[in-house]
């Protein structure tokens, strides 16, 4: 029995390790690939794989083939460190991760420590979705680059959108009771107070993370507060259940979300959410764009028919990596990190800049609306996200000051 088992394992190992070559630069993708968040991690992985395949088709990174190596972290910070160690042990020096600021926080800490303890063997962390502002403020690190707009930046887009709508007088903020939810609430309150002092925050509610099964009581509170708009940073089941309860109870105020577009949400929200759920993101599938980008989206959705194009920032990240390597003339993480600072890139949705001061990407954001009248739908629901130019918030307007004191290695 033992023999059969080890033979099976050996076979599986050969299967997993196939295709390695000397000319390969590997990127460790550390995100949930199983468990409740598995689908969203897998979606991210495919987007990265697709982005990498584009670079490879175009001659690779300084001639080297890029390869994504998936590591399943089960969204646990601790497990992420185990997987990070595994990746480093295999000689991988580029790390990509996005799901969960707690995980990103752990990885930043571990990467800092590793680079300090192992000079000459540095690794670089490309964060594509963890949005705690601290990562590019107090906790900023030379080894960390963020390719997503952080909480305050997205909130800047959301509050800009609100402040342009005079009929909104009362705003209700609801979020998950943990650091991210609190950061969203804080950003909403302070930014609204600045931009529209006349707006009253009629509710600022935190609910336990992932434990509420029925949001109706919260919705009833929102309705009785006469809110004209709702802001929420909820993700996962908390987002879906909140919107579902809102639809069931006939809430009429628009709901501004951070993650309305995440996997599975459209299916769960259904037609009722049309026109009422909005999302702040750097990418909107039905926003007019270049032919090349449309071709890319179509190619992606053909390659991975089960998934919708969502993490546009994966392409930004891979392009930045490729460009920085070319600029530095080296595939070494330290050289690439220095080259990436301050770099800009003309993307299909406007100019993208990697701010040198704090390694925070600056990009245009969109407040898109869930709609039934779309060319490209999500999850085969016939529903999707649209935005017009009026919903586009320029990168400059979303930029936030930073407290980062970057500690750069000596060259």
């Amino acid at each position, binding site marked *: *029995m033992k023999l*059969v*088992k080890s033979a*099976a*394992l050996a*076979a*599986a*190992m050969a*299967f*997993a390790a196939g295709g390695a070559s000397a000319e390969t630069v590997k990127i460790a993708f550390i995100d949930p*690939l*199983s468990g409740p968040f598995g689908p969203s991690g*897998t979606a991210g992985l*495919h987007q990265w794989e697709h982005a990498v395949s584009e670079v490879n088709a175009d001659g690779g990174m300084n001639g080297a083939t890029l390869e994504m190596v998936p*590591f*399943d972290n089960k969204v*646990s*910070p*601790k497990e992420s*460190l*185990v997987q990070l*160690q*595994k990746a*480093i*042990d*295999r000689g991988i020096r580029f790390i990509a991760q996005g799901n*969960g*600021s*707690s995980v990103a*926080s*752990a990885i930043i*800490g*571990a990467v800092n*420590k590793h680079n300090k*303890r192992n000079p000459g063997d540095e690794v670089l962390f490309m964060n594509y979705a963890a949005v*705690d502002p601290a990562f590019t403020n107090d906790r900023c690190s030379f080894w960390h680059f963020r390719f997503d707009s952080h909480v305050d930046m997205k909130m800047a887009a959301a509050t800009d959108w609100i402040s342009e709508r005079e009929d909104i007088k009362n705003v209700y903020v609801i979020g998950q*009771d*943990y*650091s*991210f939810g609190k950061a969203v609430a804080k950003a909403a309150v302070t930014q609204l107070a600045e931009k529209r002092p006349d707006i009253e925050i009629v509710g600022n509610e935190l609910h*336990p*993370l992932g434990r509420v099964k029925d949001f109706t009581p919260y919705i009833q509170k929102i309705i009785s507060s006469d809110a004209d708009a709702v802001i929420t940073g909820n993700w996962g089941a908390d987002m879906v259940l909140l919107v579902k309860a809102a639809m069931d109870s006939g809430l009429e105020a628009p709901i501004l979300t951070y993650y309305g577009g995440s996997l599975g949400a459209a299916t769960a929200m259904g037609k009722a959410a049309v026109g009422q759920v909005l999302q702040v993101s750097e990418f909107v599938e039905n926003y007019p764009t270049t032919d090349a980008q449309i071709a890319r989206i179509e190619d992606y959705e053909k390659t*991975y*028919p*089960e*998934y919708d194009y969502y993490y546009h920032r994966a392409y930004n990240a891979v392009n930045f990596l490729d460009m920085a390597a070319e600029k530095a003339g080296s595939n070494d993480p330290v050289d690439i990190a220095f080259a990436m600072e301050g770099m800009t890139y003309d993307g299909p949705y406007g100019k993208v800049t990697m701010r040198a001061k704090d390694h925070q990407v600056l990009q245009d954001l969109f407040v898109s609306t869930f709609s039934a009248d779309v060319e490209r739908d999500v999850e085969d629901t016939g529903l999707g996200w649209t935005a017009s130019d009026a919903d586009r918030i320029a990168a400059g307007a979303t930029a936030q000051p930073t407290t980062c004191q970057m500690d750069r290695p000596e060259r």
Partner: protein
Amino acid sequence: MSEQAMKSYDDLAPSATDKFRQRVLPFIVMIVLLAAIPLFDPSRTMNSLIAAMGINIVFALSYNMLLGRAGLLSFGHAVYFGLGGYAVLHAMNAIGAGSSGFWAGFPVFMLPVIGFGAGALAGVVIGWPSCKRSGVPFAMISLGVAELVASAGYMFGSIFGGEMGVTSDRMVGPRLFGLSMGPVEDIYWFIAFWTFLGTLGIYAFTRTPLGKMSEATRDNPERVQFVGYNPDRVRYLVFIFAGAFAGLAGGMSAVNYEIFTPESLSLAPSGLVLLMAYIGGIRYFTGPIMGAVLLTYMQSMLSDYSEAWLLYLGLLFIAIVMYAPGGVAGIVYGLLGILRRGGTDGVLARRAKQAAGVALAFTGLVILVEIAVRWSNGYGEVFEPFGLHLGIDTPLSWFLIAGFFAAGFGVLRMAREIEEGHG
């Protein structure tokens, strides 16, 4: 009469050779093994895996002080592991911050002692209400307490650091044994030292009067009262020690990973340690060690090869509960016993047949599960072991699955008929 009073009855106890063979030798082997591992220059991956195993060995052994030795089924043992770990991280941060005072002189190497103390303290506080009950009520209380503590973990950010947890840097404070505690090679010695000490400590506990009475209380709490012991008190004290050793393991984990998050207090890790101890075999001291090694390996390696590893884990667990309550250790010792007796009565052949049957059926199951997983994921990946192409619509797949199952159950039936024939 006087002659009898003089008699020492020393011959009642196991002979010195037996004592050495059963109690001292295993620990010598353990020391030799731990000392020999670095000679093979393990890769960093291997080092990380060994560290995880060491931590889980102590954790699972501490759990078995409850389940195996005291008969207390707990669904909240990770609480003590986590609290011990948190205490150590805070202490580590104090060492890092303090230029003077108590913490300044505290070597990181010795921090698991703090975890031990914190675990014990948590045991003192939580055990007091819990240990008034045993059996299913105790299990339910432990479940409720685990949920409460985990929720509190998210609520009190200053202690538990919210969902980001508390992090620290272990390269602080005075050095001990010349270890900087930075590189994994240093950490190896740290883990080896505390794994050995933890194992030794828990073993020593089983040899104390309290340890013996805890087994007595498991077997027969009523009778324990009539030899002068309060069963609640016995359980409570054992509970404190189990918490303390779990805290020690948590402390090892805190130094190894330099992070703890509130999720490590929750039901999931408590369930995992239950699986480790039970799959390993709760009736044997070495059972939890085997379970910890096996499950740690599965968790960190198998999960790379198969998405369905949790399914295999569940199957393994149910198979153990139903057919081998002695766990892996029970199987191993059973086989050793057969071998020692020479296996002349055909038992060995029967066991071999059973093993072959199980292996065949299991192979069929693996093919089925792996094909199903890939089909369910839906992006066209195909299970290709040994260069075979096994898709969901490939007749060969189903032929293989059916073949393996039929062969497996056929062999098992044969083995059973032999057994019944014997019986």
